[in-house]
């Protein structure tokens, strides 16, 4: 790891030292209309406030007893315009999907159509309360129900649990359903198998649900070692968790064979669906023998991942696991077409559900955006999403592999992400330096050092959002930085030079984090 830039923290240091604009150092530290931003504590004062609070009668009795605060809380005072400007200025130093290309592998940072936002903000969806009477929110319930039907159709699965609030939460939902199904038949099992090509959250989920996790190795071509997996199956194995397409960017083509073997051994198959974007409309996971799979609405169906929005991770379930789905879920009344919730009190309908993942029904805003995305693309459009995402990733893979190590380049086309390694860099340069160099070029870096099976991994996911022109421009920048790493350019070790902050001291931040303002 290279030494962090010692001048990292204060913006005035950077302006003074680099002088890269060639102009004079300003007395404010600002550069034109790009304003230097101090900390709130540095601009705040004790004698101002942005809110007008009523006078307090200090002699009035309270119920705080000995718990009443005896010292000042130490927060600074700010006027409302100062506060608004502070955060708006900081936001100008941020980078997001609305500013440029965001090739973060395993995250599917796609464009968020403004139509989605318009729909999500309709008062009938945005301003309702989870405890509102069901007859007052029929439209919202219909959206959840209809979205669930789309998810079942796209995945070829019979049931869906809508409430999990993100990918890993969905994984937990699936694994708890698997545990409930085993327990319902009096079959206690202890082990969940997780291949090396799976997402890092998979083993964490299985461990959290009380299982012992065992690794299954990857083959040299980057897929699950089917023979090793079959050899490990037995009466103690509750199931497997496989990411498909996997984190090496490859389709697990032996999935059906694996699923059949797991089922024959009495286990269940969990598929991590975080990479569903590559196969939506092309492959139905239900046809591959999947028992449970989460779908990241906030990736595959465009809700604003990384843009301030929450996640949403509905889980589709097979016939075997469907009865154990968490509460609440939505049913349609056959007589009048109305929608209603099945909760704890609907005893006859709830079945052996394992309980609840959330207090209410999940992320309504994400549901509305995802359904809008589906309806505006249509079934044919969603298929093209997958095709374009895969085409874009392969274009990057084949445009880089002559100079950048592509460990699985010979395993055939990649799916929606291209994986590279830092094998040929010289002069101690590493993946981290390339990532920092890309910041200077105006790009958010790709995912680095994941998956672990590749040395110095760089995982690039362009998504279908980008045009050929945008991708060509990225390739030019990426090739330029990689060539510097191959040549051993010493200057790259200090990158980034042009960002609001220079290279940060990641080690110091982890070892000795400063979590409060220290005056």
């Amino acid at each position: 790891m290279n030494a962090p830039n010692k001048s990292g923290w204060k913006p005035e240091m950077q302006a003074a030292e680099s002088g890269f604009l060639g102009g004079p150092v300003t007395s404010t530290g600002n550069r034109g209309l790009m304003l230097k931003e101090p900390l709130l504590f540095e601009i705040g004062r004790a004698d101002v406030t942005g809110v007008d609070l009523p006078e307090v009668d200090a002699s009035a009795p309270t119920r705080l007893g000995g718990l009443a605060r005896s010292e000042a809380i130490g927060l600074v005072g700010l006027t409302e315009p100062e506060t608004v400007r502070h955060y708006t200025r900081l936001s100008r130093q941020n980078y997001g999907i609305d500013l440029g290309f965001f090739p973060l592998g395993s995250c599917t940072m796609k464009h968020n159509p403004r139509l989605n936002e318009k729909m999500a903000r309709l008062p009938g969806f945005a301003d309702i309360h989870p405890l509102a009477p069901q007859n007052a929110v029929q439209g919202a319930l219909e959206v959840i129900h209809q979205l669930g039907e789309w998810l079942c159709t796209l995945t070829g699965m019979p049931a869906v649990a809508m409430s999990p609030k993100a990918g890993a939460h969905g994984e937990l939902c699936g694994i708890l359903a698997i545990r409930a199904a085993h327990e319902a038949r009096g079959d206690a099992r202890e082990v969940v198998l997780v291949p090396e090509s799976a997402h890092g959250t998979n083993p964490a989920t299985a461990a959290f649900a009380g299982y012992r996790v065992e690794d299954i190795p990857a083959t040299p071509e980057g897929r699950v070692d089917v023979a090793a997996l079959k050899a490990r199956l037995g009466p103690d194995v509750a199931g497997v968790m496989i990411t498909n397409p996997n984190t090496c960017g490859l389709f697990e083509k032996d999935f059906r064979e694996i699923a059949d073997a797991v089922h024959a051994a009495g286990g269940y198959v969990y598929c991590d669906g975080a990479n569903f974007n590559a196969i939506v409309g092309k492959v139905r996971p239900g046809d591959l023998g999947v028992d449970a799979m989460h779908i990241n609405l906030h990736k595959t169906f465009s809700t604003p991942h990384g843009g301030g929005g929450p996640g949403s991770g509905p889980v589709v379930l097979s016939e075997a696991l469907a009865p154990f789905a968490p509460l609440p879920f939505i049913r349609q009344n056959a007589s009048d077409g109305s929608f209603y919730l099945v909760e704890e009190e609907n005893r006859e309908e709830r079945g052996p559900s394992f309980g609840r993942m959330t207090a209410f029904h999940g992320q309504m805003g994400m549901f509305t955006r995802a359904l809008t995305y589906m309806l505006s693309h249509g079934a044919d459009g969603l298929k093209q999403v997958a095709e374009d995402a895969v085409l874009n990733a392969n274009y990057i893979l084949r445009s880089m592999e002559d100079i950048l190590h592509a460990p699985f380049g010979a395993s055939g086309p990649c799916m929606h992400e291209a994986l590279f390694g830092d094998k040929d860099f010289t002069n101690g340069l590493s993946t981290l330096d390339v990532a920092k160099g890309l910041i200077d070029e105006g790009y958010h870096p790709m995912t680095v050092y994941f998956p672990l099976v590749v040395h110095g991994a760089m995982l690039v996911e362009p998504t279908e959002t980008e045009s050929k022109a945008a991708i060509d421009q990225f390739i030019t920048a990426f090739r330029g930085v990689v060539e510097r790493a191959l040549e051993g350019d010493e200057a790259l070790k200090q990158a980034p030079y042009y960002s609001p902050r220079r290279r940060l001291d990641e080690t110091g931040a982890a070892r000795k984090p400063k979590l409060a303002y220290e005056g």
Partner: protein
Amino acid sequence: MRYYTDEHEWIEVEGDIATVGITDYAQGQLGDIVFVELPEVGAMIEQGKDAAVVESVKAASDVYAPITGEVTETNSALEEDPSLVNNAPEDGGWFFKMTIAAPAELDKLMDEDGYKAFVEGL
């Protein structure tokens, strides 16, 4: 006598107690270590199974027990200063000491020359 595993742990045997750590090559690959999770003293650990966790700015990695035995002592200095693993991986940055339940397990490990050749082949 010092032995090495193909998972980049070293084990130094003195009498009936063995000291375990990770190799210089391993710390170099991990980068700056920011946290080390050590086993409990008295825990029985089994050859090849998880014994400790080492976290760097890049990733969290398991450290496997090179042999089977009982943990007798852990290096509490690592809790205060995990950079010891970077600065003195095969000395002051040791992880834990353990008993040797099955001395025959040591025979399957590499000696210093064997490990050196193994690393060069990577």
